[in-house]
């Protein structure tokens, strides 16, 4: 059908009617909807006005579209919002937006033909978009600050406990978001920023008063509750993107700003909570600070301080106890046992907090480690920490300790000791003391249980590497082999009765290398013992080829029967003591010098021996004169009247050399080698390296075993220069070069 040309005014008046009707519908008038005919009429009018070639009214219609909306807003929408306040204003705001969306929808349907061609042709915004923009510019921009202030007011009211219409607030927020039309900038700048600032102030005020009034646990409970509420608030009526920001703000004001005041509170802060074992409160503290970046640091620092102080106090206690017992032999050692046990208990206690309240967080593990490293390495009563720990292990593993501990407890304790060892810087010194004490336990049959020994060494190996306990493991294996050799020896004697020495002899054959070095002095053996040595030598040579035996009499034990007049008593003595006593089989009375000549010992050794037999608890020999110490002009007589209620007694011989000094010397020597090896290894691979770097890498290389002294490293570098392993660079004396 031939389309009629529609003139503008004609067309527009028709459309105007439609628009007016639409407005009435929006205002809530009855009889409000468009029939399909009405719709079609409006649509076609526009269609015709836009598709007719001339005059083409696309441009005008597009503008009219915008104007209609603008006019309506000016006339009706804006005033209705502006007239109202508070909740009513918000409702108007929400409703008007909803209405506007509807209006835009209908209008764009009517004018939709424009969307088809005109809009893209002229690169204009599409109808819907354009329509919504109108609201934004004419309404939103004008009322937004009032709206925001109003909303924030309601939020604060709710915070103070008032009831508000959450749904309404949600709707308002939604408007802010929708008005952005995909961009969050409007929401964030216009609403969120204000809201966050206000929230910050709110909680800042609260925090200032709470921190003064409340105890730490109470404050934390409040904080936790606030955070919970804010989260809930955010999920109910804020945009999801605001939740995290709000939570962070609140956390900052409540927890970060006053962190130190809170944690260090005098009677209820962290340290008080630990003292009172307030597990729940501590867990809460962890929960609260865990989510804040670096939030746990202040807590961990106080934790570290607490542990360090407690540890140091234990050490001081031990030191005081030792000095008050001054003069009593082995005071240091006894005190040491108690101290180590207390340190282990301390470790258990605080580790429980770390794994429990503090959820195994690495920050607390680190704090615990650093704290223990501070006080574990302190010496007590002149005894190094390494020796104290070794002494504790020795006590666990040897027979005859007063407390009878179950196997399980022993295993558990050993496990804990190995964990504790990680905090000690002189691990090699500890290993050396362990080795010496292990040797004594094995050789004098003082070990309570071979399984414990073996399992302990395995644990050490796992913790510190294969090398660490390899010598000790060798020693334990040796004992098994030695037992086999002894069995063979007894069989040998069985089959060759003619060579029997007449005394029960048992020999422990050790391989040099893994055992500590023992010096054997040339004791003049009594005849009976000489025979034993020869017999065993004969046996051993028959079993092995080209092995040489070195006899260490200082480690031997002898059971001899003293035929005292009251009753015979079996004496368990060292070989040296036995050799001395046997001299009295031939003479009743001997002088110091006679004994010296006969036994071929040194003066000091003989004094020690004679003291143990004549000046100590059991006086097997009578010394003339009866003074307290042995002098070279003394004489000795066999005490035939000696007796004791026991049938068998052990007469101890105090050790010869200051073991501690020797061990420290040995370890220092090993360390020098270790440092040398490390330096050479580093230089070999780097070829050229500066002094500082070299020292640093050397420290890194050895620190799992011991903490090296920088001065020693420097000396070793100098020594390597003298031995032509390294040289200084000619230009830069701070650089070293490897000499191939």
């Amino acid at each position, binding site marked *: 059908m031939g389309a009629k040309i529609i003139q503008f005014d004609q067309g527009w008046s028709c459309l105007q009617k439609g628009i007016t009707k639409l407005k009435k519908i929006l205002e809530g008038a009855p009889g409000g909807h468009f029939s399909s005919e009405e719709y079609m009429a409006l649509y076609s009018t526009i269609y015709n006005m836009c598709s007719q070639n001339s005059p083409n009214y696309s441009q005008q219609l597009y503008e009219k579209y915008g104007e209609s909306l603008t006019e309506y807003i000016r006339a009706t929408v804006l005033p209705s919002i502006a007239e109202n306040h508070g909740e009513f204003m918000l409702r108007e705001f929400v409703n008007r937006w909803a209405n506007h969306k509807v209006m835009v929808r209908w209008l764009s349907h009517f004018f939709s033909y424009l969307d088809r061609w005109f809009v893209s042709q002229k690169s204009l915004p599409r109808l819907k978009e354009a329509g919504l923009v109108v609201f934004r510019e004419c309404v939103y921009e004008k009322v937004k600050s009032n709206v925001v202030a109003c909303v924030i007011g309601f939020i604060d009211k709710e915070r103070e406990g008032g009831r508000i219409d959450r749904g309404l607030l949600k709707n308002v927020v939604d408007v802010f978001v929708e008005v952005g039309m995909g961009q969050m900038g409007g929401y964030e700048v216009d609403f969120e920023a204000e809201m966050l600032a206000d929230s910050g102030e709110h909680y800042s005020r609260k925090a200032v008063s709470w921190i003064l009034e409340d105890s730490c646990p109470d404050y934390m409970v409040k904080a936790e509750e606030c955070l919970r509420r804010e989260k809930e608030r955010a999920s109910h009526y804020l945009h999801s993107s605001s939740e995290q920001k709000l939570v962070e703000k609140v956390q900052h004001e409540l927890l970060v700003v006053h962190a130190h005041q809170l944690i260090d509170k005098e009677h209820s802060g962290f340290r008080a909570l630990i003292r009172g074992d307030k597990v729940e409160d501590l867990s809460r503290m962890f929960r609260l600070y865990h989510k804040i970046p670096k939030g746990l640091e202040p807590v961990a620092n106080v934790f570290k301080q607490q542990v360090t102080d407690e540890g140091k106090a234990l050490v001081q206690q031990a030191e005081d106890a030792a000095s008050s017992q001054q003069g009593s032999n082995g005071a240091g050692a006894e005190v040491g046992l108690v101290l180590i046990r207390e340190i282990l208990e301390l470790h258990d206690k605080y580790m429980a907090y770390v794994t429990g309240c503090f959820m195994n967080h690495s920050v607390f593990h680190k704090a615990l480690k650093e704290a223990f490293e501070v006080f574990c390495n302190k010496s007590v009563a002149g005894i190094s920490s390494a020796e104290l720990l070794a002494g504790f292990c020795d006590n666990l593993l040897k027979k005859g300790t007063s407390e009878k501990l179950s196997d399980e407890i022993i295993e558990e304790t050993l496990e804990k000791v190995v964990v504790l060892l990680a905090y000690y810087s002189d691990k090699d010194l500890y290993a050396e003391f362990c080795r010496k004490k292990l040797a004594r336990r094995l050789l004098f049959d003082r070990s309570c249980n071979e399984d414990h020994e073996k399992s302990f060494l395995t644990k050490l190996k796992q913790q510190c590497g294969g090398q660490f306990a390899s010598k000790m493991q060798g020693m334990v294996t040796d004992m098994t082999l030695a037992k086999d050799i002894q069995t063979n020896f007894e069989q040998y004697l069985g089959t060759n009765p003619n060579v029997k020495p007449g005394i029960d002899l048992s020999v422990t054959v050790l391989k040099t290398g893994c055992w500590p070095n023992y010096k054997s002095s040339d004791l003049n053996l009594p005849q009976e013992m000489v025979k034993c040595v020869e017999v065993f030598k004969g046996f051993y040579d028959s079993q092995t080829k080209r092995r040489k035996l070195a006899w260490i009499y200082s480690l031997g034990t002898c059971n001899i029967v003293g035929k005292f007049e009251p009753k015979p008593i079996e004496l368990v003595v060292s070989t040296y003591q036995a050799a001395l006593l046997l001299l009295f089989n031939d003479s009743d009375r001997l002088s110091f010098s006679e004994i010296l000549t006969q036994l071929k010992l040194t003066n000091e050794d003989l004094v020690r021996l004679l003291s143990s037999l004549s000046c100590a608890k059991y006086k097997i020999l009578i010394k003339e004169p009866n003074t307290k110490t042995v002098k070279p002009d003394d004489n000795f007589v066999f005490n035939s009247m000696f007796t004791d209620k026991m049938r068998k007694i052990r007469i101890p011989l105090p050790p010869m050399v200051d073991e501690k000094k020797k061990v420290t010397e040995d370890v220092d020597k090993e360390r020098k080698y270790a440092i040398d090896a490390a330096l050479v290894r580093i230089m070999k691979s780097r070829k050229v390296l500066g*002094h500082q770097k070299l020292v640093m890498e050397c420290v890194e290389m050895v620190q799992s075993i011991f903490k090296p002294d920088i001065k020693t490293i420097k000396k070793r*570098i100098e020594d390597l220069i*003298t031995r032509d392993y390294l040289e*200084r660079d000619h230009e830069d004396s701070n650089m070293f070069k490897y000499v191939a």
Partner: protein
Amino acid sequence: MPKLSQKKCQWNVQPATKEYSAQLPSHPNPRNLQYPPKQTPVEELYRRYKDPHEEMIMAEGMSRLCTDLDVDPQDIVMLVMSWHMKAATMCEFSKQEFFNGLKALKIDSIEKFRSALPSMRSELKDKDKFKEVYNFTFDWAKEKGQKSLQLDTAIGMWQLLFAEMTPKWPYVDQWCEFLEERHKLAIPKDTWNQLLDFVRNVDPSLSNFDEERAWPCLVDDFVDYLKEKGLVQTT
């Protein structure tokens, strides 16, 4: 028989003299059959001072040389001279060293020798030469077969050398006292060499002493000693 004797005659005459002449050092004319051959001035000097049993000038000869040169044997110029000679050990010159040294110095008489002394002495004013002489001193002063220098010899050498150095190092005496009191061991070469660096580069107030650097331990200990005794100078 005649053939053999002929050979024997042949064998004896020319080669024999050749061999004999070759034994004489730097003889200008090997075919000159003067017996014994005339000696060069340097050879004469050498013969004057050499030890009767060894091919070396030893302590006694050195002392006579000093007398003839009119110089004190402790004078530092002897050290400089030894450096020129590249002498291996103090108080002796090997034949080679003596000859090469005099050749390098263009000396062939005692008078020339004597007049060369002042210029040798002034060589020490040159920083680089002083360093060379200083470094040379260690190997020269130490005992044969040892790696380190005996402490008392080292102290003597240091006192000798530092007396010549300008600007004067203010800690010479303290250094020697420190060594005698605290160190008491031989001095390794590296420490010897590094000390000169320390003397030249670290100022007397010790303000630029960096203990992180690779100074020898002895130097570190000396700095501690100075601080301990309150001997550090304020500039």
